[in-house]
């Protein structure tokens, strides 16, 4: 037993993430050029889009793990679903905040009632609801079962949110990478992919730690079960 939830693997992962963040900052703020139309504000893009995409990925993992739990009823899937949703919620919060700042600069307002923004905000609330279900004071097995269904139901919302820009042609700019490859400068494209990798690493790093913490919380709950049974049986002494 060591004292924390880290292992050699996660230490390497953590170091890579931190170094990656530093490199990403350098590329995003200094090395990559300003955009022709968006000018300096384009730098927001390297945080905004990777956090959004990684958050969507995190929620898909929650959905998949929820299905896994419903099929197998094994604790690992349940813990995985919860850990992924927590980290995803943090990333999605970063997406919303960076998006609002970016919106203030380019559109002049923090918020517009565009389909994608609205759906993303709703997705965030849904995830908060999911996390609320996970904290209900219930027997673990029952809570896991309820959470798995709510987690599964995050699926349609995540999909709708992800494809909102395609389905409703709105104010929000479309999926830049797939439609406008030619427009993007090589360095910008590299910075974007670097952002994806770094936020991906950050996600995995945090996920592993959250998974281990939640797992240990369950172990603590189990601790002393044999003792509790023995104590319960002692109540019987003297009754006949």
């Amino acid at each position: 037993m060591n004292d924390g939830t880290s292992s050699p693997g996660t230490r390497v992962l953590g170091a890579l993430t931190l170094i990656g963040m530093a490199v990403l900052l350098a590329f995003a703020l200094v090395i990559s050029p300003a955009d022709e139309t968006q000018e300096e504000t384009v730098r927001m893009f390297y945080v905004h889009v990777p956090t959004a995409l990684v958050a969507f990925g995190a929620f898909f993992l929650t959905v998949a793990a929820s299905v896994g739990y419903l099929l197998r009823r094994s604790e690992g899937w349940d813990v995985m679903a919860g850990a992924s949703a927590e980290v995803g919620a943090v990333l999605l919060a970063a997406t919303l905040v960076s998006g609002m700042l970016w919106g203030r600069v380019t559109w002049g307002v923090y918020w517009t009632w565009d389909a994608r923004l609205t759906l993303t905000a709703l997705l965030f609330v849904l995830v908060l609801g999911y996390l609320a279900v996970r904290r209900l004071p219930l027997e673990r097995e029952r809570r896991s079962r309820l959470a798995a269904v709510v987690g599964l139901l995050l699926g349609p919302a995540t999909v709708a949110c992800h494809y909102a820009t395609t389905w409703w042609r709105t104010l929000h700019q479309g999926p830049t990478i797939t439609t406008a490859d030619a427009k993007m400068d090589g360095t910008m494209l590299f910075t974007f992919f670097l952002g994806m990798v770094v936020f991906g690493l950050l996600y995995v790093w945090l996920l592993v730690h959250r998974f281990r913490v939640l797992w240990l919380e369950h172990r603590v709950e189990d601790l002393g079960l044999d003792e509790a049974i023995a104590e319960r049986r002692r109540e019987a002494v003297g009754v006949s």
Partner: protein
Amino acid sequence: MEPAVHLRGAVSLLGRFPALAGVDLDVATGEIVLLRGPNGAGKTTLLRCCAALLPVTSGEAMVLGHDLAGLTGPARRALRRQVGLLAHATGLYDELTVADNVAFWARAAGADRADAEAAMTRLELDGRLRDVAVGRLSAGQRRRASLAVLLARRPALWLLDEPHAGLDQAGRDLLDGLIGDGARAGAAVVLASHERDRAESIATRTVTIAGGTIVDDSVVGAAPPVATGARRAP
């Protein structure tokens, strides 16, 4: 013939509390087992485990030929359909009439309207009370309505939690008659009761539970009593 209930080292957790801490119990069909013990001994938990309403965390648990571990949807439903549970709560919709309630639960379990009518007649609910909303009945009348539902569902395993509570003298006699008839018809009956004299007079066996374990399991040897109610179910 295999027993209706077969438990070996059954443990059941309520949260982290082991309400059952290793129970060994067999109940044969036609038996009337009285479960007694102090408050908090695990009587209600044991009944709920037998109804597959609470999971048995470890140990062996067979009920009506179904292994409770790994019981899945359709099998669990088939088992539960054969279980009649009379608990502290009525399990009835307060705003529906007695007749509507009994008919709904009977038909849900695959019985028909005739079963429901017969059960209400047997519990003497076929008169004025028939069309009264359950929420407006007295506690004893509600208990009779719950019993009518149990009877109409024709369960193979009767699980009765303090069945005498709230019933008047006539109601208690009627209940004892029903239990005897049920056991003679091949149902296994487990009843938890503090009313030692009355319950022991109908039980074929008395089991004492304390601290989530069986501490005494003795055969009383009384024959199931003959029904005393004036009217009989067809």
